[in-house]
């Protein structure tokens, strides 16, 4: 066992405090996220991330269009159980597409066939993907992701 020495303990300097965005920048980031939710890709477009904006818009739009074309279920707030409510939250993630889908829906859902069921999954995925993109736009505006 080594003998104790009189070496002084090196104290590490405190780490630099994490750079915090100003309240105005935080509000702007929140606005980008809301814009991105309402119109898929807008949160990125406002930050001049054109490629990401286009891909988000096309991806969410395509999934939603295919889901609606397959007569998937566009859930409403008046769900019967927890799964309906979760489906509603996921569908609502598509922002304006959800309201457009509800307004243009003519024949209604048909989940008695497999394609209607696939469509329901496509619609939910479109919503969750858009929420993820809106979160990404929010983080990018705060300088956390690029």
């Amino acid at each position, binding site marked *: 066992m080594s003998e104790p020495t009189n070496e002084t303990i090196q104290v590490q300097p405190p780490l630099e405090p994490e750079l915090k965005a100003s309240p105005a920048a935080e509000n702007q980031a929140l606005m980008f996220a809301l814009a991105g939710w309402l119109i898929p890709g807008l949160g990125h477009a406002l930050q001049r991330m054109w490629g*990401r904006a286009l891909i988000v818009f096309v991806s969410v739009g395509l999934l939603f269009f*295919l889901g609606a074309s*397959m007569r998937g279920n566009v859930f409403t707030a008046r769900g019967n159980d927890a799964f309906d409510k979760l489906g509603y939250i996921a569908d609502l993630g598509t922002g304006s597409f959800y309201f457009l889908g509800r307004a243009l829906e003519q024949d209604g859902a*048909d989940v008695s066939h497999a*394609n209607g069921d696939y469509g329901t*999954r496509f619609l939910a*995925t479109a919503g969750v993907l858009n929420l993820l993109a809106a979160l990404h736009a929010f983080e990018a505006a705060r300088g956390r992701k690029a």
Partner: protein
Amino acid sequence: MTGGLVLSHFQAFLIFAAVVSVAFGFLGRRQPKDRVRYILWSFFLFLVVGIGIGWLMFPFSR
């Protein structure tokens, strides 16, 4: 079935995997080369996992 787009399970699966992989690639990576690699890798994993789970469920399908 009256009206509506009709896709087979596999066609729906391929479209789903492709669209989600492209979105993940663009959101998750910045450089074009990294994006392409990420998209291909993600798409490949979707296929492998999806078909793998399908085969795992095969013994219980009847």
